[in-house]
Each structure stands twice: as C-alpha cells, then as structure tokens.
C-alpha cells in the first residue's frame, strides 16, 4: 500500500511532501514517542505514528528510512519540523484521532488491504 492510499483511507492531513505520497510504499508501521525506541525497533519502510511534533522526529525518520510520520491527536507540527521534513523528503501527516485509533486502522489496512 502506498502513502497516498493511507492518507485517503484515514483522512489524514498531509503537511509536507505530498509529491512523495504516491511513490512511497508503506511496508509496516511503528508507534512510539521515545525516539531511542523508534531508532532501535522500527524498520525501513514503516510509517511512524507519534505524538511528538518537534524537528528531531525528522532526523529519526530519515536515518531509519521510514516511509513517513503520522502525528496523532490533531497535534500541530512545529514550523522547523515541516522545513526539515521538506528538506529531507519525509512526508508528515496529521490525524485527528488518538494514537490507539490510528495504529488500529493502519494495522487493519496493512493486513487486510
């Protein structure tokens, strides 16, 4: 499944790098707000679900070759975060739902199509 489909099905607001949504394949997912946890345990191609909004999330996603970042609970990514994401080409999407709901829906989509 590509990110574009995920954005459509989950009604996500894409804040950055919409031009990459179609070509970015989502291979799996990881959820967490501890950056070291995500560094150690996420896999390349995962979409990352988090409540963090500061710019360091972009470095983590870029270093781990993650597909993109979904920020939950309607939280607003900081301006620096968007700028950095633009530079690194990391799609940032926002959901109004909680992390629990987002993870459940992403899991279902990835496993049942």
């Amino acid at each position, binding site marked *: 499944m590509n990110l574009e489909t995920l954005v459509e099905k989950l009604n996500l607001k894409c804040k950055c790098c919409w031009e990459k949504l179609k070509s970015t394949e989502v291979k799996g997912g990881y959820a967490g707000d501890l950056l070291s946890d995500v560094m150690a345990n996420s896999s390349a191609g995962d979409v990352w679900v988090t409540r963090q909004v500061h710019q360091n999330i972009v470095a983590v996603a870029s*270093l781990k070759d993650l597909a993109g970042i979904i920020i939950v609970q309607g939280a607003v990514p900081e301006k620096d975060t968007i700028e950095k994401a633009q530079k690194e080409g990391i799609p940032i999407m926002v959901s109004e739902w909680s992390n629990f709901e987002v993870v459940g829906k992403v899991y279902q989509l990835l496993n049942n199509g």
Partner: protein
Amino acid sequence: MPDDDYLESLEGSYYVQGRDFVDAGIVSSEIKKSLKEKGMPEDIIRKVAVITFEAEINIISYAEQGTIQMFIRPDAITIEANDVGPGIADIELALQEGYSTADESIREMGFGAGMGLSNIKKFSDVFELTSEIGKGTRLKSVVKLNGQ
C-alpha cells in the same frame, strides 16, 4: 595505542555542540550519507546510523561539546565519540536500560528514556565506554563488516 593503519583509516571527524537540539541528527545524517555513497550494505548503514545518532544525542544532552569520528577499514567501521563534559559516575548503571539522568526538558522531546547507551551497545560488535568525572566521556563502537 592505536596503530598508524587505524589512524589513517579516519574517514570523517565531526564537531557536536552541547545543548544544540536544533542541529541534532546532522552528524549522523552526514555519516549515513557518506556510507551510502561508498556503497556499504544497508544493514551496516542502519547499525551505524543508530550508533551515531545516540552518540550525538548523548553529547548534545549531557556534554559541553564533543567530536564524533568514523574510521573505515576493510573489516570494520569504528565510531569514536569523545566529549568534554561532566562524565559518567557509574558506567554500569548508565548502561542499564531505563536508567537516565536526563532533565525534564530533554524527556519532553522523547529523549532521555535511558535507552541510548544500551542501544549503542546492542548494535555494536565491540563496545567500549570510559569516563572521567568532570572531564568527559569516550565511546568506541565497532561494527564488523564481514559477519562476525
């Protein structure tokens, strides 16, 4: 003492400024880019990326300043991180997952969970950590290139 071959294998040396969370990740990104350009295997690049990111965050979180150096030899990549800072009082304790001396401002950003050093150890084939109180900390991490 490191031999001449080792010193000659220095691939890059990077400065890290303490407390500069704005630029956090820049050094690890540079190192990752350089390994990609050299055509290193993906799994090796990811290991080194975790190690350098955690080392970089540690210097930023706790030290005044530091350097991260990368050495590449045919059989291994070595990362050395040296900082000028408070040092680590109890290394065994610091290596325990979940133990952290990070303050609230660091934790709010999702750092300081007490996983950094144990992550570095987990992704290293050889791991050495030495520290002197009031002076600084020295980390050496080796990732072997040919399996074990």
